[in-house]
């Protein structure tokens, strides 16, 4: 059983590392130590399929659960082995390399406290840091920055948050000042948006459906006329389809890294990437999810290279509002689920491991008989990063950054 073989060691790791790092004498002022930490949060909007990204290839129920859609070590293409139990989607060679060198960690079977299935509300909980949606207009990262500012714990020159994109992600919105940067080329409507619109038209307006279908056909042939930023003065056409998505991810993430790397730049930042709601044709080892994960992997590479020296003091947390169903649905995709993964990368990370209290994949082990059961509260991971990397006090974390989370202890040992 996966549970028997893996849980003890993972439990040990969690408990052990928690105890190890819960020093009462932990230096509280990052600057006083000569450290200058950076934290970038990337929100994957649409609920990433954690199982399709990081597959439990050692779980005996895995292959049968996903059938020929299961990511496998001997699949086509083969998954990239992480440890004896988990393997990474082959679209992510950079992440694999970082993981092998201890600069990446993966948290599996994790979730926010949100247990419903609405993206909007799920994102609200994820970014606000409050277990109920719609309560506040500020995000946990902004409140954490405020707490650090008041204690003089961050370089005042960088006492701003960075928001990438024309909409500042909620996670960095709030009373601490936010500087924003909007990529020159905005991402055109995703394939997913087009598919949904087409579906809507097919039910409501056949004429519009025909037109949209023609456009999509043209785009698939590589001749999409609708590329680029439609509001831009510069009509230069960007490359079509996934190449455009890759370019956008890399440009946006790379720019975030350049700002965070500046001596007088912001120290925390956030950005969002859309497109993870893979209801149809998810295609873990090729297709939608594979393409997006590849683009995300390219964004990781851009961050690493653009961070320069600051890479060693950087942590990037990649989180999503919830996961997807454990089983494949009728349209070769997955539906809204609960447990998923979080990626952590950065030179400051004590990585090289998949952190999971693995719940198992038998029907009775699934959440509501459909989702990967969440066993790790994502807030524990984030609180661990904020405490040990940015040196935010534990009490502040429990009171104002993630209000009402006293029970959720920060996960220790994430940063080296």
């Amino acid at each position, binding site marked *: 059983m996966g549970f028997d073989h893996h849980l003890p060691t993972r439990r040990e790791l969690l408990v052990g590392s928690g105890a190890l790092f819960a020093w009462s004498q932990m230096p509280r002022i990052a600057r006083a130590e000569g450290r200058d930490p950076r934290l970038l949060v990337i929100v994957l909007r649409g609920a990433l399929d954690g199982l399709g990204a990081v597959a439990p290839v050692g779980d005996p129920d895995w292959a049968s659960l996903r059938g020929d859609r299961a990511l496998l070590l001997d699949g086509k293409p083969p998954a990239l082995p992480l440890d004896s139990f988990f393997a990474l989607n082959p679209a992510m060679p950079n992440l694999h390399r970082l993981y092998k060198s201890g600069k990446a960690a993966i948290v599996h079977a994790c979730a926010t406290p949100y247990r419903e299935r609405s993206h909007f509300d799920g994102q609200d909980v994820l970014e606000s840091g409050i277990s109920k949606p719609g309560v506040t207009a500020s995000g946990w990262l902004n409140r954490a920055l405020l707490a650090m500012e008041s204690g003089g714990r961050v370089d005042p020159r960088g006492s701003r948050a960075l928001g990438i*994109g024309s*909409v500042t992600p909620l996670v960095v919105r709030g009373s601490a000042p936010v500087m924003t940067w909007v990529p020159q080329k905005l991402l055109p409507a995703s394939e997913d*948006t087009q598919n949904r619109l087409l579906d809507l038209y097919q039910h409501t307006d056949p004429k*519009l459906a025909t*037109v*949209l279908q023609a*456009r999509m056909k043209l785009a698939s042939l590589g001749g999409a006329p609708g590329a680029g930023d*439609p509001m831009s003065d510069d009509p230069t056409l960007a490359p079509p389809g996934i190449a455009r998505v890759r370019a956008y991810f890399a440009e946006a993430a790379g720019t975030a890294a350049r700002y965070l790397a500046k001596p007088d730049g912001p120290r925390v930042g956030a950005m969002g990437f859309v497109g993870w709601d893979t209801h149809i044709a998810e295609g873990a080892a090729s297709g939608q999810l594979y393409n997006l994960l590849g683009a995300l992997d390219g964004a990781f590479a851009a961050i690493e290279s653009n961070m320069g020296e600051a890479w060693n003091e950087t942590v990037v947390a990649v989180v999503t509002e919830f996961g997807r169903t454990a089983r494949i649905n009728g349209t070769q995709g997955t539906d809204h689920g609960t447990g998923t993964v979080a990626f952590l990368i950065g030179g400051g990370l004590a990585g090289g491991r998949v952190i999971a209290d693995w719940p198992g994949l038998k029907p009775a082990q699934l959440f509501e008989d459909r989702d990967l059961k969440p066993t790790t509260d994502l807030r524990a991971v984030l609180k661990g990063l904020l405490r040990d990397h940015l040196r935010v006090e534990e009490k502040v974390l429990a009171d104002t950054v993630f209000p009402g989370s006293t029970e959720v202890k920060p996960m220790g040992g994430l940063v080296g």
Partner: protein
Amino acid sequence: MSNAAKAEVVLALHRFGMGPRPGSIAAIGTDPRGALIAELDRPLTLTAAASLPTSAKAYRTVADANARRTARAKQAQQQAKKQQMAATQVAAGEQSQAQSEGQAPAQGQEKDAAEMAAKQAADAIPDPGRPIYLQEAKLRTEAALSAEIGFAERLVWFWSNHFCISANRIQSMSGAYEREAVRANALGRFVDLLLATEGHPAMLFYLDNLESMGANSTAGINRSRGLNENFAREIMELHTLGVRTGYTQDDVISFANVLTGWTLVPPGADPTHGGEFTFNPRLHEPGGQTVLGKRYEQEDAEQGRAVLRDLAAHPATATHVATKLARHFVADEPPPALIEQLAKTFRDTEGDLKQVAIAMVSSDDAWRGPPSKLKRPGEWVVGMVRATGITLVDPVRYTGGQQLLGEPLWRPSMPKGYPDDEASWIDGVGRRLDVANNFAERITGMADPQVIIEDVFASEIASEVKQAVGRAESRQQALALLFMSADFQRR
């Protein structure tokens, strides 16, 4: 409010107005037809336009800038030539042996340097036409966004397109033209609208009448030049009678002769009246003319005005205008009974455009059909922004979006104006998706799709749309799907 009543309110806002905005459904209440009619009694003037130049002033400003640009360029060119020549002479004195070979390239350089200097000097004086155009666009769009219903604004847009000019030819005047000639008369009598638009310098410029001269006029004889038929033809074909309604080529020529002398005061010639309409008798073909069987003997601009008055009163004009109105507002193939009703009102009231508009919204025929019209890009964009409650406009972004969607503001490619049928616009729906997606991304933080559905549209939207919006992966996607839905694009 019953569901049927609510549906009619929403239809009123989409079909005759600029689309629902927060609070508009409640404001119209249970009597959408009455509310549409009541809106016609409010003044159509743009109060903020007081700060904008008149068309003549705008035209003079641009002409002045152009003149200064030319002068500066000449000056810079001459200076550069002098300097280059002096440099060449020095070089020649020092190295006389290289003179014969060196001459040609030195001359080439001299020319390049002079041209570059001229261009730089010219570019140092910015074109004032574009900022004026953008300011006008901003005010016009803000009026559409802040109108309660927007029926009156839609009528301004309709008539502006009917009597279109192009900013590609006369950018400085394009906004002021609409304000001065169209907006001021859109709810008045058709004949006044006709006289104001055809007599406007922007129209005379656009339809090439400035240089049109009678073959027997003083200027025509002296310069051996003559008539331009364009203006007369478009007035009959597009603005009044409609194509193939019985006028002949001889009518066009006679009418063109009538219109000779309709021109404007040269902008440089008069610092206070440059750019204004003037009748120049030296260009005017002398004598009487016969148009549509009637003789016009007047000697001056009154001759043209008399023809225009008769064209305005012609029954073919009533039918033409009624058909276009019904096609624009109601259906690509409007009910014949509705067209006849509008044409009759037009004839009975001597072209009272407010009465025609009232007749349209009072007729059941205008409400009965399903929402089959595809909104034009301009309506759709404004509708989208209205739904979010935003009332301020970045004119660069707005006009850029309009251009991308194939309906650049005040820049139709032909005097016929922008078409009004689905076939002309449906292929642009893909581009609309780019714009919707982009706009949705910009406003996700401020607009909640559920609130728009419930409060702005009073849930008068297909259940499929509600479902798609509810299931979207992000607010941005939800908004894009909502704005792209048939419920939002059709009216």
